[in-house]
């Protein structure tokens, strides 16, 4: 009797917060895609609490794979990393496109993402933020560095940095006159092409100061003047330019590599309604502009550029003329198994002396 008198209220108080807890949206995303201002505004308007976890492509897939797609309600992988991950690990659920306000999106981007993230009849993602990978160059060497393979010029020994991941393989292949995307489906041809890239990257090693692994690390290396030319993201380049006008982001001659980060629903996400609300909320032009401001990259929201400040627009225009824009090489979906092959190449490059 006594025990019961103590236990019942105790159990009640313990379980009460669980049932009374506010609705929440667990968002797994990149840095800058959910700025505090936007999150606060969303919470005020909808009463849904947003929990933001920062991550990157590989980490997102690994996290979802470990739990079979649980733990988050909305994730933002790049569009080229969705279909193979879905086929291999079944971590996403199909999008209900009727719940997404398609009028908010730039039509061509929505169509492209739709095409690139379909498995069978199901569409797995809608586009959010897009950007490019290219070259971040200091004025002192700007006339020497026009393309990815220029990073290997002997004059730049010890002054170069890039991330040792798949984009450098792809970029290097393009600048060597190959077309890696066309070879995606022919594994032997791709392997042969990558063997040449491997050779190039090993020969290029003396040029590399350090392989950067995060955007901030790269910015640090360039801002301190330790590195004068690097492979990097446009947003990082523009951020550096804002602080030091001598540093610029350049679209490589062979074409900048374009990526689109998306919204996708994890297979065992618990609050799809909130996820759709968030998507429709952040794609409003004014809100999208705030995300552009914090992430440094433009979004797939129609009309958002009107609200973006002129400085960022000017940076964008200084890096891309119409021709460079048309020349962007958009990543097609990565076939499964390719990453194992690329992985061994990256390992060998890292280990080579």
């Amino acid at each position, binding site marked *: 009797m006594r025990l019961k008198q103590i236990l019942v209220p105790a159990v009640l108080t313990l379980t009460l917060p669980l049932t009374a807890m506010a609705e929440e949206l667990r968002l797994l995303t990149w840095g800058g895609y959910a700025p505090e201002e936007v999150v606060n505004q969303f919470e005020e308007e909808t009463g849904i609490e947003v929990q933001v976890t920062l991550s990157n492509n*590989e*980490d997102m*897939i*690994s996290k979802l*794979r470990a739990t079979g797609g649980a733990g988050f309600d909305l994730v933002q992988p790049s569009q080229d990393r969705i279909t193979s*991950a879905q*086929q*291999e*690990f*079944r971590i996403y659920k199909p999008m209900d496109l009727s719940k997404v306000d398609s009028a908010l999106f730039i039509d061509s981007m929505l169509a492209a993402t739709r095409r690139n993230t379909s498995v069978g009849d199901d569409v797995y993602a809608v586009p959010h933020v897009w950007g490019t990978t290219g070259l971040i160059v200091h004025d002192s060497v700007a006339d020497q560095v026009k393309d990815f393979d220029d990073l290997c010029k002997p004059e730049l020994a*010890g002054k170069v940095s890039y991330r040792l*991941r798949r984009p450098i393989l792809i970029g290097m292949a393009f600048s060597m006159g190959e077309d890696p995307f066309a070879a995606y489906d022919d594994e032997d041809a791709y392997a042969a092409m990558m063997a040449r890239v491997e050779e190039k990257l090993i020969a290029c*090693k003396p040029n*590399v*100061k*350090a*392989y950067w*692994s995060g955007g901030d690390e790269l910015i640090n290396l360039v801002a*301190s*003047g*330790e590195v004068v030319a690097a492979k990097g993201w446009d947003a990082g380049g523009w951020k550096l330019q804002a602080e030091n006008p001598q540093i610029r982001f350049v679209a490589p001659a062979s074409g900048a590599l374009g990526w689109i980060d998306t919204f996708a629903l994890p297979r065992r996400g618990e609050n799809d309604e909130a996820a759709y609300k968030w998507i429709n909320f952040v794609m409003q032009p004014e809100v999208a502009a705030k995300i552009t401001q914090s992430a440094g990259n433009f979004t797939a929201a129609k009309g958002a550029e009107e609200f973006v400040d002129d400085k960022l627009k000017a940076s964008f225009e200084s890096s891309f003329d119409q021709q460079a824009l048309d020349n962007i090489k958009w990543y097609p979906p990565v076939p*499964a198994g390719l*990453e*194992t092959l690329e*992985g*061994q190449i990256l*390992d*060998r490059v*890292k*280990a*080579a*002396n």
Partner: protein
Amino acid sequence: MAAPKVAARRLVGMSTLLLMLPLLLWLFLLIFLPHLDMFAVALRERVGFGEYRFSWMHFELFFSESLYWRTFLRTAVMSMLTTLLTLIIALPIAWYIAKLVRGRVRSLLFMACLIPFWVSELVRTYGWMILLRESGVISGVLQWSGLADAPVEMLYNDVAIMVGLIYASMLFMLVPLVTTLDSLDNSLVEAAYDLGGNHFTVTRDIIIPHAMPGIVSGSIVVFMLSLGNYLTPVLLGGKDSLWFTEQIFTQFITRFNWEQGAAFGVLLLVLSSLIVWLGLKLSGQSFAETMK
């Protein structure tokens, strides 16, 4: 007469078992089972979308692809070197703390060893990066004093990794050394000098043999910590310095190749245990002896 005795013994056995149960469960559920599972994961080969079959290929790849076993070898050799250097640096310090100072100074010195561990490993490693980088503190001081006329890069190489590892593991060598040296009777050392010993022979014949259990247990801990370290090699190491734990991380996280990563994990466990066992055999120590 014998029956109650047996029953009593059985009761004692029962209660010890019950007392041990949490520990056994912990060992079984959190150590043994996950390792077994990892081994099982390592033994499957992907044949299609979500389809797997039994195979030893991930273990074979470790031995056939020279890159992987060489990385392991490199990691092991560097860890052994770290252990040796840590020992050489720690021995005089431990002697000083255990024998030459008393009271407040002694606890102050101990504190000085401990305090760096109040901040996380990440912060400590970043500290080293600020010191060693080309635009960093040491390079700045060298240029200011005129010893160097251009920025000096000391980061991103094996020496930087070594410095970071030694710094990170110093405490784990010092503590066992101080404890064992503490128990060395001073009169033994005095007697040795009286009998005509010099610094070298006294160290070799009296101090080292006495400190051996401390040396061995310290070395095991430092070796294992260095071998399994991830942050220090990744942050301080350069473009050529691959570390084996980094390989495991890459397989799991960036390549989605859990099978290969699990195989590497199992190999790391087996090979490092083998090295420790071999080290104990060669130095004539037994594991039970050192853990006393």
